[in-house]
């Protein structure tokens, strides 16, 4: 009985791995999002990281190269996107963005975490690794 239980659990896990890695087409860059593709993007991936930014925000400019680097490190594991809050104020309001840069973490569209302010690659990496561990 116990062995059967373990077998079933493994079977379920294999199924979810297949869903995560082979069906999804992962982006290979930080995707520019707007109201047309935002919801679809966050719902599509087991883990997505969205950077809310504005062109006038100095720290936001420093965030982009960090996300680009992370998108290479986590290729096919995490989807990275960014949303210009100035051009997409409805979404900024929906997600209650009050300070930028602002990172939101989603799992299949469900918000799992957020952070405000410029963060180092190491700090963001730590958060991502924790969320990926939860997936396993």
């Amino acid at each position, binding site marked *: 009985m116990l062995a059967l239980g373990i077998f079933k659990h493994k079977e379920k896990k294999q199924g979810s791995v297949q869903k995560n890695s082979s069906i999804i087409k992962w982006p290979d860059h930080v995707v520019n999002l707007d109201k047309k593709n935002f919801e679809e993007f966050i719902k599509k991936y087991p883990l997505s990281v969205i950077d809310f930014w*504005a062109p006038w925000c100095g720290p936001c400019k420093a965030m982009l190269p960090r996300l680009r680097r992370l998108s290479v490190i986590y290729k096919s594991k995490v989807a990275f996107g960014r949303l210009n809050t100035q051009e997409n104020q409805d979404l900024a309001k929906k997600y*209650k963005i*009050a*300070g930028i840069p602002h990172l939101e973490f989603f799992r299949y569209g469900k918000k799992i975490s957020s952070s*405000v*302010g*410029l963060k180092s690659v190491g700090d963001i990496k730590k958060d991502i690794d924790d969320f990926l561990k939860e997936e396993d």
Partner: protein
Amino acid sequence: MEMETIKRFLDKNNTIGFIGATIQKEKWGYKKYKEIKDAGFEVYPINPKYDKIDGDKCFPDLNSLIEFLNKKPDFVVTIVPPKITEKVVEQCKEFGIDKVWMQPGSESEKAIKFCEENDIEVVYGTCIVVDALQKL
């Protein structure tokens, strides 16, 4: 930085001293002051160069604002050179103001360290986006 920190600052019941407000409409010292005011916050401009900004009484320093209000503001925003921010945080300690939001460019390591050593909650590396908080 957690969202809770931002929420603690951007509570609509908070009174804000805005240090470095200006009449020059192209500058962030005007744009951000106006944005915060238009978002419905009780915000007071502080700049010794002006008597009025956008029709509002402008205060030469924190002390005169506190005398006018007969209480201290709940937090101050700095949008001034880092050297001035370093003096502002010392005044905050003197007046018992325990929250400072340093707009990017106004912060310095010395000012941040001073806040951390004196139990002043400090936000830096993050731009205020209160327009996103309207009509929630």
